[in-house]
């Protein structure tokens, strides 16, 4: 029988409807469709898809189980490598990872690996996750700083090996970017909470309101703990550095998304934290963060939501699915356009942005073609709100406060492949080590660091 060339459709909320609510956009596969999609998999002996997965999930293994209807076994296979599958199944840029290596690409679309992973994670959660087996305590204690995907994964894996783990989180909620950055309609917060609950069931203790470096230092933690893992992420917003950026109406993507997601400003005044966007919103940048901003703006009632980006559509760093969803929802893409200055009224309220048209020149260090301004091509666009989503740098607090810790040239903590820093009992991983990257890379780093920490603790007897 010939293999179907395209993925089975995953039903979604229609664009016209979904821009009026914050509910999740795709509904996920039902059992029948999941089995049909799983049957597309060729069960390749050399497993090329696995090479594309940073956490080494046995992809043909779990997909084979789905095809046979054994969802519990599929869940077990995934969970043995990935503690947060409901998250990665939703936000992984799979087109460039597992699915990007799938043999089926030769004839058409790859197997919907992400969709199937999501299906299994949701199936398991709805059924009620089996409480994990208790393991014998090693008597060793590890402090994990930051509860983003890197910290949570590392904490979960260490607990599974019997170590006592406490996670210290600066904010009042767990999850890092999963909670404050990625919007509800893409990653429901109930799912993040469920994943965190699972990790707590493994015996991990999570403490909030602890800003490590301020409330307590890493050195002080190490008086009580045998090792520390730093997963504090890349939360420092970058700016355009153009005139008018401090006007009323210009937000960093982080402030905007934190207000809306973590503080639930979309439910103001039921929740106390406000957000204000007006009618026309311009988001600068074209990564996942930018798409989230532009799509969130529509849901808050913006009549026009622009993505303004200085390169062309092939260079846009966001996941394909996000760009597609944004387009369907009516986000207006102004590409090869770069802001020059923000203009306010006499009260300092943002009114317009002046932009200049760009063209692409020779490739730069990043391998992408360098955008060059076209002289005399300035235009002004009327806007009420500007959202700056051009990237984040590593959080400087820990790098600044741990003595002798080796710091890289972007302010990142330097580590080897397994998260070892230059200080034997301090490990690090995720965005704080690599700069802003992806959820699954952060999880992979947390995983490898857990292994290295385990080894270190055993070597100390």
């Amino acid at each position, binding site marked *: 029988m010939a293999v179907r060339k395209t993925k089975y459709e995953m039903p979604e909320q229609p664009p016209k409807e979904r821009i009026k609510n914050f509910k999740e956009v795709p509904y996920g596969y039902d059992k029948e469709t999941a089995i049909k999609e799983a049957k597309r998999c060729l069960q390749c002996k050399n497993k090329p898809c696995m090479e594309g997965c940073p956490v080494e999930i046995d992809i043909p293994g779990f997909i084979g189980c789905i095809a046979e209807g054994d969802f519990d076994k599929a869940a077990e296979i995934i969970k043995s490598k990935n503690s947060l599958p409901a998250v990665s199944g939703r936000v992984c840029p799979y087109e460039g990872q597992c699915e990007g290596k799938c043999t089926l690409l030769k004839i058409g679309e790859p197997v919907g690996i992400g969709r199937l992973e999501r299906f299994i994670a949701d199936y398991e959660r709805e059924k009620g996750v089996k409480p994990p087996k208790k393991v014998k305590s090693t008597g060793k204690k590890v402090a994990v700083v930051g509860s983003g995907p890197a910290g949570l994964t590392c904490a979960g894996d260490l607990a599974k090996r019997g170590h006592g783990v406490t996670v210290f989180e600066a904010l009042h909620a767990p999850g890092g970017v999963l909670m*404050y950055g990625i919007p509800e309609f893409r990653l429901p917060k109930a799912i993040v909470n469920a994943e965190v609950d699972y990790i707590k069931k493994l015996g991990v203790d999570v403490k909030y309101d602890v*800003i490590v470096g301020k409330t307590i230092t890493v050195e002080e933690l190490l008086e009580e703990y045998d090792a520390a893992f730093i997963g504090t992420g890349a939360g420092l*917003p970058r700016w355009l550095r153009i005139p008018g950026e401090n006007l*009323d109406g210009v937000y960093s993507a982080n402030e905007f998304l934190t207000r809306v997601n973590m*503080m639930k400003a979309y439910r103001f005044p039921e929740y106390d*934290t406000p957000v204000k966007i007006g009618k026309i919103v311009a988001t600068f940048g074209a990564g996942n963060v930018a798409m989230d901003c532009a799509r969130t703006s529509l849901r808050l009632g913006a009549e026009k939501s622009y993505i303004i980006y200085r390169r062309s559509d092939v260079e846009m760093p966001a996941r394909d699915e996000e760009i597609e969803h944004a387009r369907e929802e009516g986000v207006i893409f102004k590409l090869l356009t770069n802001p020059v200055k923000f203009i306010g009224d006499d009260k*300092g309220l943002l009114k317009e942005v002046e932009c200049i048209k760009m063209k692409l020149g020779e490739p730069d260090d990043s391998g992408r073609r360098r955008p060059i301004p076209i002289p005399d091509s300035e235009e002004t666009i009327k806007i009420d709100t500007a959202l700056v989503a051009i990237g984040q740098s590593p*959080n400087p607090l820990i790098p600044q406060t741990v003595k002798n810790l080796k710091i890289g040239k972007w302010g990142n903590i330097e580590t080897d492949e397994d998260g070892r820093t230059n200080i034997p009992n301090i490990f690090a991983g995720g965005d704080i080590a690599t700069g802003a990257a992806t959820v699954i890379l952060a999880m992979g780093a947390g995983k490898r660091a857990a292994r290295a920490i385990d080894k270190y603790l055993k070597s100390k007897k």
Partner: protein
Amino acid sequence: MYEILEKKVMSEIVKLMEIKAPLVAKKAKAGQFIILRIDERGERIPLTIADYDRKKGTITVIFMEVGKTTKQLGTMNVGDKLLNFAGPLGVASEIENYGTVVCIGGGVGIAPLYPIVRELKKAGNYVISILGARNEKLLMLEKEIEEYSDELHICTDDGSKGTKGFVSNVLQQLIDDGKKIKIVWAIGPVIMMKVVADLTRKYNLKTIVSLNPIMVDGTGMCGGCRVSVSGETKFACVDGPEFDGHLVDFNNLMLRNRRFTHEEEESCNLYGVKL
């Protein structure tokens, strides 16, 4: 959860609370602040550490009821608990023996000034304190500050206590009298800090101000608290809240602090109080 151990009504709209937060108390220093959240639906609001007791593990905050969150906080009592209380945040004041220092507190800015006055005195300075408020009712901590001050001047806009006039008038008088002032701390409403900074700039007299932009996380992640200092963008929650008053763009701060006026009103109305 963080329990309220003591509550004092300083005036109709100013309250003091002592809150159990041992980790914060262990590290707190003059000039730093905390961020609290009352309940699940609450906003995160910053308040300066007015005092700390490392032995008891408590932090004292003094706040003026200006909007929904501070008014709601004002209704809470001893034994009630706050959901979140994080800190200490920001950079501590640079306390050393400067010689003669002038500490100016306006309105609710008197609260954060208090630990700075105390630490400056302990460091051996000759401390001249100037406290100002719109009227007598809004003055506070006079006794506490007097204890650590070599001189205390009080003024009110309406003359209901002390001299009638602004804190800047008193400072001008001190300068005219030829006091050898080494450094000035000015904490209060933005406009007061601006006026003081404008005055001392003429005399090249170093002036530290403590800025109060709208904040969200307080950890340097959102950039909502950014202020323009000598043309550079700084985050008040991590780089501040204290800055060199001669370099701060106060107009931009005033503008950015009005960002949510309309929403704040709505929130207050819903809560049943007038802003």
